[in-house]
């Protein structure tokens, strides 16, 4: 899970899930705690699904929140 997806690609990560920023990858302090938790829950869930998904090449998984 990374904000700098191009860097993740360069170093060879295969399953990539975007985060929202460098200093706060999974929760924007400018939003409410509930919103942050919702975002974090969603993106970690995408990462878990990615771990159980077969891929043939480096793949960036889509996030909805």
């Amino acid at each position, binding site marked *: 899970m990374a904000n700098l997806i191009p860097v993740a*690609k360069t*170093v060879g990560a295969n399953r990539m899930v975007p985060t929202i920023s460098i200093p706060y990858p*999974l929760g924007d302090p400018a939003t409410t705690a509930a919103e942050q938790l919702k975002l974090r*829950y969603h993106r*970690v869930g995408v990462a878990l699904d990615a*771990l*159980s998904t077969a891929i043939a090449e480096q793949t960036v998984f889509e996030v909805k929140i």
Partner: protein
Amino acid sequence: MVTKDSERILSEGGVEMKKAILYINQFFAGIGGEEQADHVPEIREGLVGPAILLNQLLDAEITHTIICGDNFIGSREAEAVEIILGFLAERKFDLFFAGPAFQAGRYGNACGVIGRAVQARFAVPAISSMNKENPGVEMFKKDIYIFPGGKSAAKMRDDMKKMAEFGNKLLKGEQTGFAENEGYYGRGIRHQVWLKNAKPAAERAIAMLLKKLHGEEFQTELPIPKIDQVPIADPLKDLSKATIALVTSGGIVPVDNPDRIQSASATRWGRYRISGLDKLGNRKQGKFKTIHAGYDPAAGDDDPNRVVPLDALRTYEKEGKIGKVHDYFYSTVGTGTTEAEAARMGREIVAYLHQAGVDAVVLTAT
């Protein structure tokens, strides 16, 4: 150490002549080929084999030649290194040379192993030469100066000349330039330099961009190393039975940073128990904070779960989406950290994860 020819090495100006030592294998020492490849390390005063040539080309005296069989150092590396470092312990020398090794893989490995060890122990630059196909290039180009060389000993003079010319620069204390200008294989080390034309970065970047837009050739100032391909791990068969670990390069640690992980250019990592925790407590609560110097720590200190999402992962554990959250999370700092150190720390962490039966990792980067 005062050598017996200490008078001779005082040159006319009364300035002590610089000294260098050359490492070669059993073949180039004239001891023998493959059948002598187990030759134990030895040191001889003066010039053996290619040392004669190097001594002619170099503005320093080759005081000693070290000889070791390629198989000896290949199969008993630690022992060979200790013996050879022992030979050198009491000696003064300004440069260390190894090879040239041409396309000989074991010789290349030997030159790299010993060059790196000597450089690390005595803080003396090590210079070698290898053909680009020699696996020693990839293994050691980051550690020592390796110049591109020919495939066979027919190129001895050319290859030795490159090594000696660069050695002469170092001996004179001249400022050396970029790897591509000096000719050695790039080591992936970045230096801060003052440019003679004093053009600011913005102007140089725009000039490059214009060239790119016009389809002209341009030279990047920041070459990105080629992409490392990593084999793709098989997907988890049953997520609901899997143990998932959290690993981060975001520098989240207990507030007292017990492992003293560096805030930049980290060489250390830590693992911290999270069994029984629903989420990571923050800095104010005296629990976790970030020591990463590459980003504003405010958000991470205020809520470390933004960087290490334990709370969300715990929820998935309770809901049965995953089997279990691994009892520890692992942390280091990913800023200014070399790829080599990062890879080493990764391997060390993976050993723990394997041992604990972890099935998969969610890695968070900042």
